[in-house]
Protein backbone atom coordinates (compact mmCIF):
# COMPACT_ATOMS: atom_id res chain seq x y z
CA UNK A 1 0.00 0.00 0.00
CA UNK A 2 1.34 3.40 -0.98
CA UNK A 3 0.52 6.43 1.14
CA UNK A 4 1.26 10.07 0.35
CA UNK A 5 1.39 12.46 3.30
CA UNK A 6 1.02 16.22 2.90
CA UNK A 7 3.45 17.93 5.25
CA UNK A 8 3.82 21.61 6.00
CA UNK A 9 7.12 23.15 6.95
CA UNK A 10 6.57 26.03 9.35
CA UNK A 11 8.71 28.59 11.20
CA UNK A 12 9.86 27.18 14.56
CA UNK A 13 7.01 27.88 17.03
CA UNK A 14 9.68 28.33 19.74
CA UNK A 15 10.65 31.68 18.19
CA UNK A 16 7.97 34.37 17.92
CA UNK A 17 6.31 34.59 14.49
CA UNK A 18 6.36 37.83 12.54
CA UNK A 19 4.17 39.28 9.82
CA UNK A 20 5.59 40.86 6.71
CA UNK A 21 4.05 44.38 6.88
CA UNK A 22 4.03 44.71 3.07
CA UNK A 23 1.80 41.68 2.52
CA UNK A 24 0.39 40.94 6.00
CA UNK A 25 1.50 37.34 5.58
CA UNK A 26 3.68 35.28 7.91
CA UNK A 27 7.41 35.62 7.35
CA UNK A 28 8.83 32.26 6.30
CA UNK A 29 12.32 33.22 5.25
CA UNK A 30 14.24 31.41 8.01
CA UNK A 31 14.75 27.71 8.66
CA UNK A 32 11.48 25.79 8.62
CA UNK A 33 10.62 22.70 10.64
CA UNK A 34 8.08 19.91 10.21
CA UNK A 35 4.72 21.02 11.57
CA UNK A 36 4.09 18.91 14.65
CA UNK A 37 0.52 18.21 13.52
CA UNK A 38 1.90 16.55 10.36
CA UNK A 39 4.11 14.22 12.40
CA UNK A 40 0.91 12.35 13.25
CA UNK A 41 0.06 11.87 9.57
CA UNK A 42 3.57 10.58 8.81
CA UNK A 43 3.46 8.17 11.75
CA UNK A 44 0.01 6.89 10.80
CA UNK A 45 1.14 6.36 7.21
CA UNK A 46 4.22 4.41 8.36
CA UNK A 47 2.07 2.23 10.61
CA UNK A 48 -0.48 1.56 7.84
CA UNK A 49 2.27 0.53 5.42
CA UNK A 50 3.81 -1.71 8.11
CA UNK A 51 0.45 -3.34 8.76
CA UNK A 52 -0.16 -3.82 5.04
CA UNK A 53 3.21 -5.56 4.83
CA UNK A 54 4.39 -3.63 1.78
CA UNK A 55 4.40 -0.33 -0.05
CA UNK A 56 5.93 3.00 0.80
CA UNK A 57 5.27 6.40 2.31
CA UNK A 58 5.97 9.50 0.20
CA UNK A 59 5.65 13.11 1.28
CA UNK A 60 4.67 16.31 -0.51
CA UNK A 61 5.16 19.85 0.67
CA UNK A 62 4.86 23.43 -0.56
CA UNK A 63 7.40 25.84 0.91
CA UNK A 64 9.45 28.90 -0.07
CA UNK A 65 13.19 29.00 -0.79
CA UNK A 66 13.55 25.30 -1.64
CA UNK A 67 13.27 24.54 2.08
CA UNK A 68 13.53 20.82 2.88
CA UNK A 69 14.58 20.79 6.58
CA UNK A 70 11.10 19.77 7.75
CA UNK A 71 10.75 17.20 4.96
CA UNK A 72 14.06 15.64 6.07
CA UNK A 73 12.49 14.99 9.48
CA UNK A 74 9.66 13.04 7.83
CA UNK A 75 12.17 11.19 5.65
CA UNK A 76 14.25 10.39 8.76
CA UNK A 77 11.13 8.90 10.35
CA UNK A 78 10.83 6.48 7.44
CA UNK A 79 9.21 8.13 4.38
CA UNK A 80 11.12 7.15 1.25
CA UNK A 81 10.81 10.11 -1.11
CA UNK A 82 9.27 13.52 -1.50
CA UNK A 83 8.10 16.21 -3.87
CA UNK A 84 8.65 19.83 -2.86
CA UNK A 85 6.80 22.58 -4.68
CA UNK A 86 8.86 25.71 -4.19
CA UNK A 87 8.27 28.76 -6.33
CA UNK A 88 8.40 32.51 -5.58
CA UNK A 89 5.25 32.81 -7.71
CA UNK A 90 3.35 30.89 -5.04
CA UNK A 91 3.65 33.68 -2.43
CA UNK A 92 0.16 34.83 -1.45
CA UNK A 93 -1.57 31.66 -2.61
CA UNK A 94 -4.97 31.02 -1.04
CA UNK A 95 -6.22 27.68 0.29
CA UNK A 96 -7.73 26.58 -3.03
CA UNK A 97 -4.53 27.27 -4.97
CA UNK A 98 -2.57 25.37 -2.31
CA UNK A 99 -4.99 22.47 -2.69
CA UNK A 100 -4.59 22.50 -6.50
CA UNK A 101 -0.80 22.53 -6.18
CA UNK A 102 -0.76 19.70 -3.64
CA UNK A 103 -3.24 17.69 -5.74
CA UNK A 104 -0.92 18.07 -8.73
CA UNK A 105 2.01 16.94 -6.56
CA UNK A 106 -0.02 13.87 -5.52
CA UNK A 107 -0.60 13.08 -9.20
CA UNK A 108 3.10 13.59 -9.94
CA UNK A 109 4.03 10.90 -7.40
CA UNK A 110 1.02 8.86 -8.54
CA UNK A 111 -0.15 5.39 -7.54
CA UNK A 112 -1.39 6.42 -4.10
CA UNK A 113 -3.85 4.24 -2.22
CA UNK A 114 -4.32 6.90 0.41
CA UNK A 115 -3.49 10.58 0.89
CA UNK A 116 -3.11 11.76 4.49
CA UNK A 117 -2.93 15.32 5.80
CA UNK A 118 -3.15 17.04 9.15
CA UNK A 119 -6.52 18.61 9.95
CA UNK A 120 -4.92 22.03 9.83
CA UNK A 121 -1.45 23.48 10.18
CA UNK A 122 -0.11 25.29 13.22
CA UNK A 123 1.13 28.57 11.72
CA UNK A 124 -1.44 30.00 9.29
CA UNK A 125 -4.48 27.93 8.45
CA UNK A 126 -7.96 27.71 7.05
CA UNK A 127 -8.53 24.03 7.88
CA UNK A 128 -9.93 23.45 4.38
CA UNK A 129 -6.99 22.34 2.23
CA UNK A 130 -7.39 18.53 2.60
CA UNK A 131 -11.06 18.63 1.58
CA UNK A 132 -10.39 20.97 -1.35
CA UNK A 133 -7.54 18.71 -2.47
CA UNK A 134 -9.89 15.70 -2.40
CA UNK A 135 -12.37 17.59 -4.58
CA UNK A 136 -9.64 18.58 -7.06
CA UNK A 137 -8.46 14.96 -7.21
CA UNK A 138 -12.03 13.65 -7.45
CA UNK A 139 -11.49 11.41 -4.43
CA UNK A 140 -13.66 10.81 -1.37
CA UNK A 141 -12.70 12.93 1.64
CA UNK A 142 -12.85 11.93 5.31
CA UNK A 143 -11.98 14.54 7.93
CA UNK A 144 -11.00 14.51 11.63
CA UNK A 145 -9.86 10.86 11.59
CA UNK A 146 -8.73 9.58 14.97
CA UNK A 147 -8.15 6.01 13.83
CA UNK A 148 -7.66 4.69 10.31
CA UNK A 149 -7.72 1.02 9.34
CA UNK A 150 -7.64 -0.60 5.93
CA UNK A 151 -9.81 -3.61 5.20
CA UNK A 152 -9.06 -4.79 1.67
CA UNK A 153 -10.16 -1.97 -0.63
CA UNK A 154 -12.14 -0.24 2.09
CA UNK A 155 -11.05 2.46 4.46
CA UNK A 156 -12.51 2.45 7.96
CA UNK A 157 -12.24 5.64 9.94
CA UNK A 158 -13.31 6.70 13.39
CA UNK A 159 -14.18 10.33 12.75
CA UNK A 160 -13.94 12.66 15.75
CA UNK A 161 -17.13 14.60 16.52
CA UNK A 162 -18.12 16.92 19.33
CA UNK A 163 -20.06 14.13 21.03
CA UNK A 164 -17.69 11.21 20.38
CA UNK A 165 -16.91 9.65 17.01
CA UNK A 166 -18.64 8.41 13.89
CA UNK A 167 -17.64 5.19 12.15
CA UNK A 168 -17.10 5.99 8.50
CA UNK A 169 -16.24 3.65 5.65
CA UNK A 170 -15.23 4.69 2.16
CA UNK A 171 -13.53 3.17 -0.88
CA UNK A 172 -9.84 3.68 -1.61
CA UNK A 173 -8.12 5.76 -2.77
CA UNK A 174 -9.24 8.60 -0.51
CA UNK A 175 -7.99 11.77 1.17
CA UNK A 176 -8.08 11.65 4.96
CA UNK A 177 -7.24 14.40 7.44
CA UNK A 178 -6.05 13.17 10.83
CA UNK A 179 -6.40 14.93 14.18
CA UNK A 180 -3.44 15.67 16.42
CA UNK A 181 -2.60 13.11 19.10
CA UNK A 182 -3.99 10.09 17.24
CA UNK A 183 -0.67 8.24 17.31
CA UNK A 184 2.67 8.91 18.94
CA UNK A 185 5.09 10.08 16.24
CA UNK A 186 8.37 8.13 16.42
CA UNK A 187 11.65 9.91 17.06
CA UNK A 188 14.02 9.74 14.10
CA UNK A 189 17.03 7.53 14.83
CA UNK A 190 20.54 8.71 13.94
CA UNK A 191 20.68 6.10 11.19
CA UNK A 192 17.36 7.45 9.88
CA UNK A 193 18.71 11.01 9.94
CA UNK A 194 21.77 9.97 7.93
CA UNK A 195 19.68 7.95 5.46
CA UNK A 196 17.26 10.87 4.98
CA UNK A 197 19.98 12.97 3.38
CA UNK A 198 20.26 10.61 0.43
CA UNK A 199 16.51 10.09 -0.10
CA UNK A 200 15.21 11.81 -3.23
CA UNK A 201 13.26 15.06 -2.98
CA UNK A 202 12.08 16.32 -6.35
CA UNK A 203 11.78 20.13 -6.33
CA UNK A 204 9.31 21.54 -8.86
CA UNK A 205 7.56 24.85 -9.58
CA UNK A 206 3.84 25.52 -9.96
CA UNK A 207 4.37 25.89 -13.72
CA UNK A 208 6.07 22.45 -13.82
CA UNK A 209 2.86 21.06 -12.37
CA UNK A 210 0.74 23.04 -14.83
CA UNK A 211 -0.98 25.16 -12.19
CA UNK A 212 -1.52 28.81 -13.21
CA UNK A 213 -2.27 31.46 -12.13
CA UNK A 214 -0.97 31.11 -8.57
CA UNK A 215 0.10 33.41 -5.73
CA UNK A 216 -1.63 36.75 -5.32
CA UNK A 217 -2.71 36.63 -8.98
CA UNK A 218 -4.59 33.37 -8.50
CA UNK A 219 -5.97 34.10 -5.04
CA UNK A 220 -9.63 34.76 -4.63
CA UNK A 221 -8.99 36.34 -1.27
CA UNK A 222 -7.04 39.34 -0.06
CA UNK A 223 -5.84 40.35 3.36
CA UNK A 224 -7.42 43.75 4.00
CA UNK A 225 -6.58 44.21 7.66
CA UNK A 226 -4.66 42.66 10.54
CA UNK A 227 -5.64 43.26 14.15
CA UNK A 228 -4.24 42.23 17.52
CA UNK A 229 -6.17 39.43 19.19
CA UNK A 230 -8.16 40.89 22.10
CA UNK A 231 -6.56 40.35 25.48
CA UNK A 232 -8.25 37.87 27.76
CA UNK A 233 -10.62 39.54 30.17
CA UNK A 234 -10.11 39.02 33.89
CA UNK A 235 -12.35 36.35 35.39
CA UNK A 236 -15.16 37.15 37.80
CA UNK A 237 -14.45 36.47 41.47
CA UNK A 238 -17.43 35.56 43.61
CA UNK A 239 -17.17 35.59 47.41
CA UNK A 240 -18.78 32.47 48.84
CA UNK A 241 -21.74 33.40 51.04
CA UNK A 242 -23.17 29.89 51.17
CA UNK A 243 -25.38 30.46 48.12
CA UNK A 244 -22.61 30.66 45.52
CA UNK A 245 -23.73 27.49 43.81
CA UNK A 246 -26.78 29.31 42.40
CA UNK A 247 -24.47 31.80 40.69
CA UNK A 248 -22.39 28.95 39.26
CA UNK A 249 -25.57 27.29 37.97
CA UNK A 250 -26.68 30.62 36.42
CA UNK A 251 -23.25 31.05 34.81
CA UNK A 252 -23.22 27.55 33.34
CA UNK A 253 -26.81 28.02 32.19
CA UNK A 254 -25.71 31.23 30.44
CA UNK A 255 -23.06 29.23 28.58
CA UNK A 256 -25.80 26.73 27.61
CA UNK A 257 -23.71 23.85 28.95
CA UNK A 258 -26.43 22.66 31.35
Amino acid at each position, binding site marked *: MNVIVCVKQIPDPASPGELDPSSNTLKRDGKLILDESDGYGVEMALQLVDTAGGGEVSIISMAPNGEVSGMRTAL*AMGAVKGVLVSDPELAGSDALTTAKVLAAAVKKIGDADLVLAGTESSDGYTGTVPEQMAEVLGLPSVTFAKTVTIDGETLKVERQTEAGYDEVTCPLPAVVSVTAGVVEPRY*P*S*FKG*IMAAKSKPVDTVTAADLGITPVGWAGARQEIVDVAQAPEREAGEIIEDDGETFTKIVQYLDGLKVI
Partner: protein
Amino acid sequence: MRFAFDEDQRLFADALRKMLAEQCTASQVRAVWDDGVGHDPALWARLAEMGVIGMLLPETDGGLGGSMVDAVLLFRELGRAIVPGPVIESMAIAGPVLAGSKWAAGIASGELVATAELDGTGHVPHASVAHVVLTPEGLLDLAGAEIDDAGGIDGGRRLGIVRGGGLVDHDGRSTADAVDLDAARDRAAVATAAYLIGASEAMIDMAGEYARQRHQFGKPIGSFQAVKHLLADALLKVEFAKAPTYRAAWSVATGAADVARDVSMAKALANEAAHATSRAAMQVHGAIGYTWEADLQLWMKKVWALERAYGTTSWHRRRVSSAVLSS
Protein backbone atom coordinates in the same frame (compact mmCIF):
# COMPACT_ATOMS: atom_id res chain seq x y z
CA MET B 1 41.11 22.21 8.70
CA ARG B 2 37.61 23.14 9.75
CA PHE B 3 37.08 22.87 13.51
CA ALA B 4 33.30 22.92 13.63
CA PHE B 5 30.63 20.30 14.10
CA ASP B 6 29.24 18.96 10.85
CA GLU B 7 25.58 18.90 9.90
CA ASP B 8 25.00 15.31 11.06
CA GLN B 9 26.53 15.99 14.46
CA ARG B 10 24.27 19.01 14.94
CA LEU B 11 21.19 17.16 13.67
CA PHE B 12 21.87 14.26 16.06
CA ALA B 13 22.17 16.66 18.99
CA ASP B 14 18.97 18.50 17.96
CA ALA B 15 17.05 15.22 17.64
CA LEU B 16 18.27 14.04 21.05
CA ARG B 17 17.45 17.37 22.66
CA LYS B 18 13.90 17.26 21.28
CA MET B 19 13.37 13.69 22.44
CA LEU B 20 14.70 14.41 25.92
CA ALA B 21 12.61 17.58 26.25
CA GLU B 22 9.56 15.35 25.89
CA GLN B 23 10.71 12.06 27.42
CA CYS B 24 13.05 13.17 30.21
CA THR B 25 11.33 16.11 31.87
CA ALA B 26 12.23 17.36 35.34
CA SER B 27 9.22 15.53 36.80
CA GLN B 28 10.31 12.27 35.15
CA VAL B 29 13.85 12.70 36.52
CA ARG B 30 12.38 13.44 39.94
CA ALA B 31 10.27 10.25 39.78
CA VAL B 32 13.36 8.19 38.91
CA TRP B 33 15.26 9.73 41.84
CA ASP B 34 12.33 9.18 44.19
CA ASP B 35 11.93 5.50 43.37
CA GLY B 36 15.35 4.81 44.86
CA VAL B 37 16.68 2.99 41.80
CA GLY B 38 17.94 5.80 39.62
CA HIS B 39 17.22 4.38 36.19
CA ASP B 40 14.44 4.65 33.62
CA PRO B 41 14.38 1.50 31.45
CA ALA B 42 11.90 2.99 28.94
CA LEU B 43 14.11 6.03 28.42
CA TRP B 44 17.17 3.77 28.12
CA ALA B 45 15.42 1.78 25.38
CA ARG B 46 14.62 5.00 23.50
CA LEU B 47 18.22 6.20 23.79
CA ALA B 48 19.47 2.87 22.44
CA GLU B 49 16.91 2.80 19.63
CA MET B 50 17.89 6.32 18.58
CA GLY B 51 21.55 5.27 18.41
CA VAL B 52 22.82 7.28 21.38
CA ILE B 53 24.09 4.41 23.53
CA GLY B 54 25.95 2.78 20.64
CA MET B 55 27.47 5.98 19.22
CA LEU B 56 31.04 4.94 20.10
CA LEU B 57 30.59 1.25 19.25
CA PRO B 58 31.53 -0.05 15.79
CA GLU B 59 28.80 -0.73 13.25
CA THR B 60 29.62 -4.45 13.38
CA ASP B 61 28.41 -4.38 17.00
CA GLY B 62 25.21 -2.53 16.07
CA GLY B 63 26.69 0.84 16.94
CA LEU B 64 27.25 3.90 14.79
CA GLY B 65 31.03 3.79 14.68
CA GLY B 66 31.26 7.38 15.81
CA SER B 67 34.16 9.15 17.47
CA MET B 68 34.29 11.26 20.62
CA VAL B 69 33.72 14.33 18.41
CA ASP B 70 30.44 12.73 17.26
CA ALA B 71 29.48 11.94 20.85
CA VAL B 72 30.47 15.10 22.72
CA LEU B 73 27.37 17.11 21.78
CA LEU B 74 25.23 14.12 22.78
CA PHE B 75 26.79 14.12 26.25
CA ARG B 76 26.02 17.83 26.50
CA GLU B 77 22.34 17.13 25.69
CA LEU B 78 22.22 14.19 28.13
CA GLY B 79 23.54 16.58 30.77
CA ARG B 80 21.05 19.31 29.91
CA ALA B 81 18.26 16.85 30.78
CA ILE B 82 20.37 15.21 33.58
CA VAL B 83 19.49 11.83 32.10
CA PRO B 84 19.65 9.24 34.90
CA GLY B 85 21.46 5.90 34.58
CA PRO B 86 24.95 4.93 33.44
CA VAL B 87 25.09 6.88 30.16
CA ILE B 88 28.70 8.00 30.68
CA GLU B 89 29.87 4.58 31.92
CA SER B 90 28.08 2.64 29.14
CA MET B 91 28.83 4.95 26.25
CA ALA B 92 32.32 6.22 27.08
CA ILE B 93 33.88 3.40 29.12
CA ALA B 94 32.32 -0.07 28.91
CA GLY B 95 31.09 0.20 25.30
CA PRO B 96 34.42 1.08 23.65
CA VAL B 97 36.38 -1.28 25.96
CA LEU B 98 34.07 -4.19 25.13
CA ALA B 99 33.81 -3.42 21.37
CA GLY B 100 33.94 -6.63 19.37
CA SER B 101 33.13 -8.82 22.38
CA LYS B 102 29.96 -10.85 22.84
CA TRP B 103 28.66 -8.12 25.16
CA ALA B 104 28.91 -5.22 22.71
CA ALA B 105 25.75 -5.83 20.64
CA GLY B 106 23.67 -5.98 23.83
CA ILE B 107 25.09 -2.68 25.01
CA ALA B 108 24.30 -1.00 21.66
CA SER B 109 20.75 -2.38 21.60
CA GLY B 110 20.13 -1.29 25.19
CA GLU B 111 19.35 -4.82 26.40
CA LEU B 112 22.58 -5.05 28.40
CA VAL B 113 23.13 -2.15 30.77
CA ALA B 114 26.82 -1.77 31.54
CA THR B 115 28.51 0.39 34.14
CA ALA B 116 32.12 0.80 35.16
CA GLU B 117 34.30 1.40 38.22
CA LEU B 118 37.93 1.82 37.30
CA ASP B 119 39.50 3.11 40.49
CA GLY B 120 38.95 0.28 42.93
CA THR B 121 36.98 2.41 45.39
CA GLY B 122 34.49 -0.39 45.96
CA HIS B 123 31.64 2.05 45.29
CA VAL B 124 30.17 1.20 41.89
CA PRO B 125 27.97 3.87 40.31
CA HIS B 126 24.65 2.52 38.98
CA ALA B 127 25.46 -0.97 40.36
CA SER B 128 21.84 -1.85 41.11
CA VAL B 129 20.60 -0.98 37.60
CA ALA B 130 23.40 -2.55 35.56
CA HIS B 131 23.83 -6.11 34.32
CA VAL B 132 27.62 -5.93 34.15
CA VAL B 133 30.30 -3.72 35.63
CA LEU B 134 33.71 -3.18 34.07
CA THR B 135 36.43 -3.24 36.73
CA PRO B 136 40.23 -3.15 36.41
CA GLU B 137 40.21 -6.92 37.06
CA GLY B 138 37.68 -7.79 34.39
CA LEU B 139 33.99 -7.71 33.64
CA LEU B 140 31.81 -8.50 36.61
CA ASP B 141 28.54 -10.21 35.76
CA LEU B 142 26.11 -8.89 38.35
CA ALA B 143 23.65 -11.79 38.03
CA GLY B 144 23.77 -13.46 41.41
CA ALA B 145 25.86 -10.70 42.99
CA GLU B 146 24.79 -9.04 46.23
CA ILE B 147 24.57 -5.28 46.00
CA ASP B 148 24.34 -3.03 49.04
CA ASP B 149 22.88 0.33 48.15
CA ALA B 150 25.35 2.98 49.28
CA GLY B 151 23.10 5.86 48.17
CA GLY B 152 24.88 9.02 47.17
CA ILE B 153 23.84 12.61 46.69
CA ASP B 154 22.80 12.05 43.07
CA GLY B 155 19.58 10.02 42.86
CA GLY B 156 20.22 9.29 39.18
CA ARG B 157 23.65 7.82 39.94
CA ARG B 158 23.26 5.69 43.03
CA LEU B 159 26.36 3.95 44.32
CA GLY B 160 26.43 0.29 45.27
CA ILE B 161 28.87 -2.02 47.02
CA VAL B 162 29.08 -5.29 45.09
CA ARG B 163 29.75 -8.69 46.65
CA GLY B 164 30.15 -11.80 44.53
CA GLY B 165 29.20 -11.96 40.88
CA GLY B 166 31.11 -13.86 38.23
CA LEU B 167 34.27 -12.26 36.89
CA VAL B 168 34.94 -12.63 33.17
CA ASP B 169 38.50 -11.85 32.11
CA HIS B 170 39.76 -10.65 28.73
CA ASP B 171 41.19 -13.89 27.28
CA GLY B 172 43.16 -14.60 30.43
CA ARG B 173 44.13 -11.00 31.08
CA SER B 174 42.69 -8.40 33.43
CA THR B 175 41.02 -5.29 32.01
CA ALA B 176 44.00 -3.28 33.19
CA ASP B 177 46.35 -5.50 31.17
CA ALA B 178 44.10 -5.85 28.14
CA VAL B 179 43.12 -2.26 27.51
CA ASP B 180 44.42 1.23 28.15
CA LEU B 181 42.48 2.24 31.24
CA ASP B 182 43.86 5.77 31.14
CA ALA B 183 42.29 6.20 27.71
CA ALA B 184 38.98 4.94 29.11
CA ARG B 185 39.25 7.40 32.02
CA ASP B 186 40.00 10.21 29.57
CA ARG B 187 36.90 9.38 27.52
CA ALA B 188 34.84 9.39 30.72
CA ALA B 189 36.33 12.72 31.80
CA VAL B 190 35.50 14.40 28.46
CA ALA B 191 32.00 12.90 28.49
CA THR B 192 31.50 14.15 32.05
CA ALA B 193 32.80 17.61 31.14
CA ALA B 194 30.28 17.85 28.29
CA TYR B 195 27.51 16.50 30.55
CA LEU B 196 28.38 19.16 33.16
CA ILE B 197 28.27 21.89 30.49
CA GLY B 198 24.77 20.78 29.44
CA ALA B 199 23.60 20.65 33.05
CA SER B 200 25.03 24.13 33.64
CA GLU B 201 23.23 25.53 30.61
CA ALA B 202 19.98 24.10 31.94
CA MET B 203 20.58 25.73 35.34
CA ILE B 204 21.24 29.10 33.70
CA ASP B 205 17.98 28.71 31.73
CA MET B 206 16.10 27.82 34.92
CA ALA B 207 17.55 30.73 36.87
CA GLY B 208 16.93 33.11 33.95
CA GLU B 209 13.33 31.99 33.73
CA TYR B 210 12.90 32.46 37.48
CA ALA B 211 14.50 35.92 37.31
CA ARG B 212 11.96 36.94 34.68
CA GLN B 213 9.00 35.69 36.72
CA ARG B 214 9.96 36.67 40.27
CA HIS B 215 9.12 40.31 41.02
CA GLN B 216 10.61 42.46 43.78
CA PHE B 217 10.20 46.23 44.22
CA GLY B 218 7.59 46.04 41.46
CA LYS B 219 10.01 44.69 38.83
CA PRO B 220 11.29 41.30 37.71
CA ILE B 221 14.46 40.55 39.69
CA GLY B 222 16.18 39.83 36.36
CA SER B 223 16.11 43.57 35.66
CA PHE B 224 18.52 44.22 38.55
CA GLN B 225 22.15 44.46 37.57
CA ALA B 226 23.40 42.34 40.48
CA VAL B 227 21.22 39.42 39.35
CA LYS B 228 22.18 39.86 35.70
CA HIS B 229 25.87 39.81 36.62
CA LEU B 230 25.52 36.58 38.57
CA LEU B 231 24.10 34.79 35.55
CA ALA B 232 26.38 36.52 33.05
CA ASP B 233 29.46 35.44 35.04
CA ALA B 234 28.18 31.86 35.16
CA LEU B 235 27.46 31.85 31.43
CA LEU B 236 30.95 33.19 30.74
CA LYS B 237 32.52 30.29 32.64
CA VAL B 238 30.34 27.77 30.81
CA GLU B 239 31.20 29.25 27.41
CA PHE B 240 34.91 29.22 28.31
CA ALA B 241 34.66 25.53 29.22
CA LYS B 242 33.01 24.58 25.91
CA ALA B 243 35.88 25.07 23.48
CA PRO B 244 38.42 23.15 25.62
CA THR B 245 35.88 20.33 25.99
CA TYR B 246 35.35 20.10 22.23
CA ARG B 247 39.11 20.27 21.75
CA ALA B 248 39.54 17.44 24.26
CA ALA B 249 36.98 15.37 22.35
CA TRP B 250 39.01 15.93 19.18
CA SER B 251 42.25 14.99 20.95
CA VAL B 252 40.65 11.77 22.24
CA ALA B 253 39.17 10.98 18.81
CA THR B 254 42.46 11.51 16.99
CA GLY B 255 44.81 10.17 19.66
CA ALA B 256 46.61 13.51 19.81
CA ALA B 257 49.89 13.67 21.72
CA ASP B 258 48.54 16.28 24.13
CA VAL B 259 45.44 14.31 25.02
CA ALA B 260 46.15 14.23 28.78
CA ARG B 261 46.63 17.99 28.92
CA ASP B 262 43.50 18.68 26.82
CA VAL B 263 41.24 16.29 28.70
CA SER B 264 42.31 17.65 32.07
CA MET B 265 41.91 21.26 30.94
CA ALA B 266 38.37 20.45 29.81
CA LYS B 267 37.34 18.62 32.97
CA ALA B 268 38.88 21.23 35.29
CA LEU B 269 37.15 24.11 33.51
CA ALA B 270 33.82 22.26 33.23
CA ASN B 271 33.97 21.37 36.95
CA GLU B 272 34.57 25.00 37.87
CA ALA B 273 31.91 26.30 35.51
CA ALA B 274 29.30 23.86 36.75
CA HIS B 275 30.13 24.54 40.39
CA ALA B 276 29.95 28.32 39.91
CA THR B 277 26.73 28.00 37.91
CA SER B 278 25.04 25.92 40.59
CA ARG B 279 25.90 28.56 43.20
CA ALA B 280 24.73 31.43 40.99
CA ALA B 281 21.48 29.65 40.11
CA MET B 282 20.85 28.98 43.79
CA GLN B 283 21.53 32.63 44.65
CA VAL B 284 19.09 33.83 41.96
CA HIS B 285 16.40 31.45 43.20
CA GLY B 286 16.87 32.55 46.81
CA ALA B 287 15.19 30.53 49.56
CA ILE B 288 12.94 28.62 47.18
CA GLY B 289 16.04 27.11 45.56
CA TYR B 290 16.68 25.22 48.80
CA THR B 291 13.35 23.46 48.71
CA TRP B 292 12.82 19.87 47.66
CA GLU B 293 10.02 21.02 45.32
CA ALA B 294 12.29 23.30 43.24
CA ASP B 295 13.74 21.38 40.29
CA LEU B 296 17.06 23.20 40.66
CA GLN B 297 18.11 20.87 43.49
CA LEU B 298 18.20 17.90 41.09
CA TRP B 299 20.62 19.66 38.76
CA MET B 300 22.76 20.99 41.64
CA LYS B 301 23.20 17.56 43.19
CA LYS B 302 24.00 16.03 39.82
CA VAL B 303 26.72 18.64 39.33
CA TRP B 304 28.14 18.17 42.82
CA ALA B 305 28.43 14.42 42.22
CA LEU B 306 29.93 14.65 38.75
CA GLU B 307 32.50 17.34 39.49
CA ARG B 308 34.14 14.74 41.73
CA ALA B 309 33.79 11.87 39.25
CA TYR B 310 36.63 11.03 36.84
CA GLY B 311 38.99 13.49 38.45
CA THR B 312 38.47 16.45 40.76
CA THR B 313 39.35 19.96 39.69
CA SER B 314 42.64 19.96 41.63
CA TRP B 315 43.66 16.54 40.27
CA HIS B 316 43.10 17.71 36.69
CA ARG B 317 44.84 21.04 37.33
CA ARG B 318 47.91 19.17 38.60
CA ARG B 319 47.81 16.98 35.50
CA VAL B 320 47.67 20.03 33.23
CA SER B 321 50.54 21.54 35.15
CA SER B 322 52.77 18.47 34.86
CA ALA B 323 51.85 18.03 31.16
CA VAL B 324 52.74 21.63 30.37
CA LEU B 325 55.87 21.83 32.51
CA SER B 326 57.28 18.52 31.29
CA SER B 327 56.92 19.43 27.62
